[in-house]
């Protein structure tokens, strides 16, 4: 199983190229509020996470995922469910 810390670290790496303003990235950094990500960038990020772990993150899950920490929890959960 991929551990939560490993998922979080890799998510930070995936976000880095989409973070031109170099907003500090923590568990509580929010995508819309802190990073001002537009929906197209969010789509790119979701796609890269899906490819990274070969999972599916449905669009209807996104409204509940406001911070990097929440996304890491969700991804770790989806990876665990995949087995």
């Amino acid at each position, binding site marked *: 199983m991929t551990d939560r810390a490993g998922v979080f670290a890799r998510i930070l790496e995936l976000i880095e190229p989409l973070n031109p303003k170099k907003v500090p990235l923590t568990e509580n950094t929010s995508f819309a509020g802190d990073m001002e990500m*537009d*929906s*197209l*960038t969010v*789509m790119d990020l979701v*796609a890269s996470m*899906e*490819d990274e772990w*070969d*999972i*599916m993150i*449905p*669009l*209807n899950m996104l409204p509940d995922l406001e911070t990097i920490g929440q996304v890491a929890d969700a991804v770790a959960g989806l990876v665990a469910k995949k087995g």
Partner: protein
Amino acid sequence: MPNLPVTDLLAKYDPLIAEHAGLLSTGIRDPFGIVMDKVLSPTEAIIKGQHTILLGTYNYMGMTFDPDVIASGQAAIRDFGAGTTGSRVLNGTYQTHKECEDALKDFYGMSHAMVFSTGYQANLGMVSTLAGKGDFIILDADSHASIYDGCKMSNADIVRFRHNDAADLEKRLKRLPAEAGKLVVLEGVYSMLGDVAPLPELVAIAKAHGCMVLVDEAHGMGFFGEHGRGVYEEQGVADDVDFVVGTFSKSVGTVGGFCVSNHPKFEILRLVCRPYTFTASLPPAVVASAATSIRKLMTAHAKRDRLWEATRRLHGGLKSRGFKLATDTPESAIVSVLMPDQETTALMWSTLINLGVYVNMSRPPATPAGVFLLRCSICALHSNEQIDIVLGKFEQAAQMVNLALHEPA
């Protein structure tokens, strides 16, 4: 006990109010506040006393003033009254509604047709009713708002794939459970950029993964394919499309929406599709006009040819004048001019309307992020002279607002 202070629910729109006010303070006309004082024909209107060429109306086949269409509407309002005051499933289905659905069945060569009050409601209803809890809806990222809203209203899981990207669609479908119900939603023509979908690739992948397919032909009906059914007919995938959604508000020239299908259980949708059931049906005059228009569109070959001819003239003319267009060749009857930013778009739009040319101004969220457009939709009744006037005005407006034009390739 004194009342609590009210929290203003509209306060969340303050940034948008400020942005709109900022735009208007530069002295431009309001792009979202146009009033047509008189409509002279499908291609001309009087706006603020000025004679204006209409180039942003989706009235592709010019049916709004067709004498037979108007006569049908007049007869129906006289014989059946101004409205039905009821739902399609209670007192709101008249002979006129039945005839309209028969016209659709004949037009599409399909066994079932359901008429909704608008195309927006047709997508909202079909998408949300077909896919329920445990099912998946897979939609193109550039889908129309009505499709997105249908997804929101359904209890399905929503998966989005990159616009018109067959490889991306396949990658996503591979991750879904084989046994789950899956609906792939596509559009024949995408209305913002006016580009056409590669339906054979997309539909083949959808079928290989056990999906049902719905295609929205809002901007393709009337002039794609041998019978004018849409892009799905022209590209030869009719046998693999389960549901076709469309609208009367474009080529048909009135208002309303529909879904047609050969699915043997289709009729049950009338009882479970809430945007169909829980709203009043269209007025008799509207469905009677639509039925006549649809039957005339079946054989409107000369008009189709003329529409493509006028479209090529506009697309080629804008391109040779150095405007940047969203598609390299005219793929549909929508020609979208790419603009650099919101201010230039608004200024150019305002200048054009002052010069007597109406086009659509489009910006996010209607368009993909960062995309600003002046969208032209062509009508079969636009004359070459009108197109040439428009081309001249575009060139003049670009000079007036200092829009950089490109060396034509």
